[in-house]
């Protein structure tokens, strides 16, 4: 098999592993959907006057960003750590499989699951609360998805360097993003969050990624929905993650 065919082969088996693993399906697919339903149940279909839209319209891009971050950064960091500690990565290194093909398969899985979450959350928003799907801004949604997916995958791979064992994988990845979901206006509408807190969140990629999606889903925003400034910050974090991953990623177990 040539490299591309082999990457697709790897991707197919990554898909099998992902969908058969109850934890990865729950945390990556079910939990974001639950968040979407619960936040809408609690905050109802009220208007956010300052932004001129309903809470459900606000939560669709918020949970879309959460879904992508979960599939790329968290799920990737956890699965790579588990495979590193169980020797699966080390064994893979002992086969002719090129490293880039392995990553292409696994990252490809994360990107495909992310795209699925964009579709699923947008469709649920439209069906249940009539949140408009921004067809006219689809190119902006796609670009935001791919820039964000790439950046958060790089950050996820880099994050594995900080995770010493399998047991530490879920707590550390959640510690990395959960506070940022609150601070960045993903869980709580940003109109409820003090400006000082938002400016802290501005230093990190989660808020910029969310704002890039928000622009595309905001019915009041004119234009094509591209937020190049926010995407640049996300890409910058991704580049940093890429360099750290190159330098610090390891294939062999640490907890031995």
């Amino acid at each position, binding site marked *: *098999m040539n490299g591309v065919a*082999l990457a697709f*082969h*790897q991707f197919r*088996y990554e898909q*099998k*592993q992902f969908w*058969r*693993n109850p934890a990865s399906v729950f945390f990556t697919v079910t939990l974001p959907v639950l968040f979407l339903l619960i936040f809408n149940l609690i905050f109802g279909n009220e208007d956010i006057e300052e932004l001129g839209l309903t809470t459900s319209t606000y939560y669709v891009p918020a949970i879309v960003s959460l879904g992508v971050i979960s599939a790329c950064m968290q799920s990737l960091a956890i699965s790579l750590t588990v495979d590193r500690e*169980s*020797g*699966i990565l*080390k*064994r893979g*290194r*002992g*086969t*002719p*499989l*090129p490293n880039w093909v392995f990553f292409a398969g696994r990252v490809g899985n994360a990107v495909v699951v992310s795209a699925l979450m964009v579709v699923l959350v947008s469709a649920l928003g439209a069906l249940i609360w009539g949140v408009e799907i921004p067809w006219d801004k689809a190119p902006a949604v796609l670009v935001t998805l791919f820039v964000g997916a790439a950046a958060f995958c790089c950050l996820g791979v880099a994050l594995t360097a900080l995770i010493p064992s399998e047991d530490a994988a879920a707590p550390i990845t959640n510690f990395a993003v959960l506070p940022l979901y609150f601070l960045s206006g993903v869980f709580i509408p940003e109109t409820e969050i003090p400006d000082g807190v938002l400016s802290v969140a501005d230093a990190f990629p989660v808020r910029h990624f969310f704002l890039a999606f928000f622009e595309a889903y905001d019915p009041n925003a004119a234009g094509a929905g591209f937020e190049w400034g926010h995407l640049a910050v996300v890409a910058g974090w991704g580049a940093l993650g890429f360099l750290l991953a190159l330098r610090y990623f390891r294939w*062999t*177990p640490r907890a*031995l």
Partner: protein
Amino acid sequence: MSDLAIKASGLRKSYGGLEAVRGIDLEVRMGEVFAFLGPNGAGKTTTTEILEGYRTASAGEVRVLGVDPSGPTREWRERIGIVLQQCRMIPELTVTETLELYAGYYSRPRDVASTVELVGLGDKAHTRASRLSGGQQRRLDVGVALIGDPDLLFLDEPTTGFDPNARRQFWDVIKSLGDLGKTVFLTTHYMEEAQVLADRVAVIAAGEIVAVGTPDELGDREQRPAVITFRLPAGVDPSSVPSGVGASADGSGSLRCSTADPVRVLNELTRWALDNGVELEALECRRPSLEDVYLELTRTPEEAVS
């Protein structure tokens, strides 16, 4: 093309100031099952991982299938199969799927179904790895190492933690590899395993090779004296045993003698016993086992003094 699968000379590996491998020479011939024995910390895994291309040597020359393993190429990896000391199987995939996944990495893989049979998992072909027993997972691990149809197979302590039945089933698999003409480099803690499987054995202790040979001749085992032990019934005076037997009390109530000529000694002993109507309880004659030789070879200087 050399008829050596592995050739190492003057191989050294240091970690910081500590020298884990201190200049060893190894030769493994094509088609043989070679067992590499040694206690934990003797440099066994370090050496194996250098040969497998996972680590680089600090000094010395190493050739594995004619290639320096410190810069593993894809072509070389095609010819090597590795079973790591510790490695879980991918829990979500079935036996067949696991082998199909790895088969895709090789240009000329073995047939998946026949490999499933070869490692004795025919009735588990569609069972997920998470539902296999420890021994079955290990056999799947060997199947994965074999799927690329390698010339050389590394097995690093493959049966640690097995129950005796699982170990015997595993041995059958390894024996059938020998029949396929594969070269096998096996590390193990179990002397019986080396005895049953290996054509030749090397023992490493404190970073140096202390003996190489067939399991029978290792450490001049064939030339060593046999040990005869027995007990006398109550009331029989030990001094009535013929002096030619040379028996002495071993402190646990038995008598023992060590002899290079066990046939003559046994004959003398049993004739005396029959003539005098003495029953020799727990009569035993044994050669030093591979394990006896191994324990002696790998004894640390402190243990030797005590």
